[in-house]
C-alpha cells in the first residue's frame, strides 16, 4: 500500500513538472510572437521614415526613443546596422546644414559613422574627424547621454570603439607599430616589441584631450593589448599599406579568414559581403 502511494506521488509530480514546463514554453512562444510582430512593425516604420529623410525619426532611431523593438534581424530586408548608418547620415547632414539637431543624437551619429568606418579606404581622416567631434561633444557636456534609456544605445564610448580610435589615430599621426620587432630580454608585459608603459604613453598621446578621459575606468593592460593587436586586422593593415603608414605586419601574416572573420577584399580594403 505504501509503495503504491509513493508511486502515485511520483506520477503526480512528473505531471506537474510537465505542465509547468509547457506553461513556460507557451509563455515564451507568446512573447516571441509579440516581439516578432513589434520588430517587423518598427522596422517597416523606420525604413519608410528614413526613406523620407525624416530628421526627427532619424534622431529617435539613434537615441532609441523610437523603433526600439529590434529583437532580431528582419529577413530579406535592410539590416538594423544599415538603418543606423542612414539615420546617422541624415542627422549629420542636417547639422552641417545648420538645422537644429539634438546634441545627444548628433554624438551618436558621429560615433555610428566612425564605427561604420566612413571615408575608408582613402580618407581615414573622415572617420577620425567624426570621432573627434563626438568626443568634443561629450567632454563639453558629460551629462549629454543621461536622458537616454534604451538597450540599443550605449551611453559611454565602448572600450572597443576607444581601442580602434586610439590605434587609427596613432598610425595616422605617423606612429610606428612593428610586429617583427623583438622585445628586449627581461621586459615585462610587451606587445609588438615594446613594453606597455611605452604604448601607454603613445596611445594616450594619440587621444590627448579628446577621449583619454574615458580610459579612466578601462583596464589599462587590456586596452593597450587590444588596441595594438587591432592593427593586425585586415581593414587597418590594408589602409595602412595604402597610406604608407609605419605598420610592419608579422612575417607569417595571413590575409584571409583572419581570426574567423570572413573573406576580405584587399583591393577595396573591405570585407566581402
Amino acid at each position, binding site marked *: 500500500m505504501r509503495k503504491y502511494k509513493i508511486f502515485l506521488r511520483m506520477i503526480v509530480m512528473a505531471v506537474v513538472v510537465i505542465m509547468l514546463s509547457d506553461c513556460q514554453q507557451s509563455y515564451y512562444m507568446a512573447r516571441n510572437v509579440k516581439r516578432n510582430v513589434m520588430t517587423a512593425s518598427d522596422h517597416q516604420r523606420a525604413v519608410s521614415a528614413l526613406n523620407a529623410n525624416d530628421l526627427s525619426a532619424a534622431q529617435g532611431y539613434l537615441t532609441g526613443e523610437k523603433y526600439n523593438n529590434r529583437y532580431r534581424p528582419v529577413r530579406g530586408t535592410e539590416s538594423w546596422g544599415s538603418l543606423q548608418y542612414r539615420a546617422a547620415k541624415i542627422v549629420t547632414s542636417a547639422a552641417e546644414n545648420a538645422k537644429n539637431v539634438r546634441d545627444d543624437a548628433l554624438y551618436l551619429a558621429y560615433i555610428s559613422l566612425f564605427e561604420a568606418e566612413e571615408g575608408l579606404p582613402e580618407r581615414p581622416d573622415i572617420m577620425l574627424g567624426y570621432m573627434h567631434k563626438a568626443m568634443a561633444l561629450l567632454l563639453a557636456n558629460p551629462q549629454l547621454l543621461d536622458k537616454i534609456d534604451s538597450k540599443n544605445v550605449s551611453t559611454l564610448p565602448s572600450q572597443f570603439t576607444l581601442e580602434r580610435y586610439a590605434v587609427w589615430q596613432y598610425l595616422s599621426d605617423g606612429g610606428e607599430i612593428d610586429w617583427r620587432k623583438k622585445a628586449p630580454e627581461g621586459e615585462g608585459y610587451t606587445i609588438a616589441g615594446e613594453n606597455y*608603459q*611605452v604604448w601607454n*604613453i603613445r596611445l*594616450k598621446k594619440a587621444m590627448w584631450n579628446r577621449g*583619454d578621459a574615458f580610459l579612466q575606468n578601462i583596464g589599462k593592460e587590456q586596452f593597450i593589448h587590444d588596441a595594438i593587436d587591432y592593427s593586425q586586422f585586415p581593414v587597418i593593415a590594408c589602409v595602412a599599406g595604402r597610406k604608407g603608414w609605419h605598420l610592419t605586419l608579422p612575417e607569417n601574416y595571413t590575409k584571409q579568414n583572419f581570426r574567423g572573420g570572413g573573406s576580405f577584399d584587399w583591393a577595396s580594403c573591405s570585407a566581402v559581403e
Partner: protein
Amino acid sequence: MRLLKIMIIIAAFCTPFGHAVSHRQTVNEPAAPYNLRWEMSYDEARNMPLYSLEVSDINYAGRDINLITSTLSPQEVGEFKYQEMNLYFDKNKGLKSIYVNAIINDDKEALALYNEEVKVLDREYGMAITKEEFISDEKKFYKSLNDCIAQQQEWYNKGLDSSKITHCSKWQRSYKKGRVTVLLYIEPRQVSKQYIYK
C-alpha cells in the same frame, strides 16, 4: 658699555649676512626632479604635457579631500630605473610629493640601486640627516629585512612598543635641504624613493 657697542656692531654686520645665507639657501634648494616643479597644479603637470599622468584616487575614510593621487609612467620623464611613479598634489598648494618604486628580486641589485641613489643624493642634498643601515645577516639581506617587519608586527599585535626592538634590520636614510625631504629605503624585494615638499 664698550662690550655692548662691540656686540651691536657685530650684530649689525651679522644680520644682513645671516639674511643673505638663508636667502642663498632657498636659491640653492634643489629643484623638483624629473623637470617637475614643486607647487605646480595637477593641470599644469598634465599640460606639460605628461600623457600618461592620471588620477588614481581611492576613497577611504578620513582621506584628505584636497589630496590628488596620480600615477605616471616613469619612462615618460626619462626614469628607467623604477617601474612605478606616483605624484601627490594638494588641490590648493600643488605638487607636494613624488614617489618612485622599483621591484627588484635580487638583493644585490637592490643594494646597487640604493648606492647609486646615495651618490646622487649626497651631491645634491649634502649629508644624510638620518641613516639606519643595519643588517643582521648580510648574506640574507631581504630575509633580514623581512624578519624585522615580522617582529615589529608581532610586537604591535601584542600591544608592545615596537620602537624598542633592538637589532632590527633596516636599510634606509633621509636627506633634507630647504623645504625638500628625501627618503630612500629598501624593503623586501623593492627599493623606494620619496621626495616630500613641505
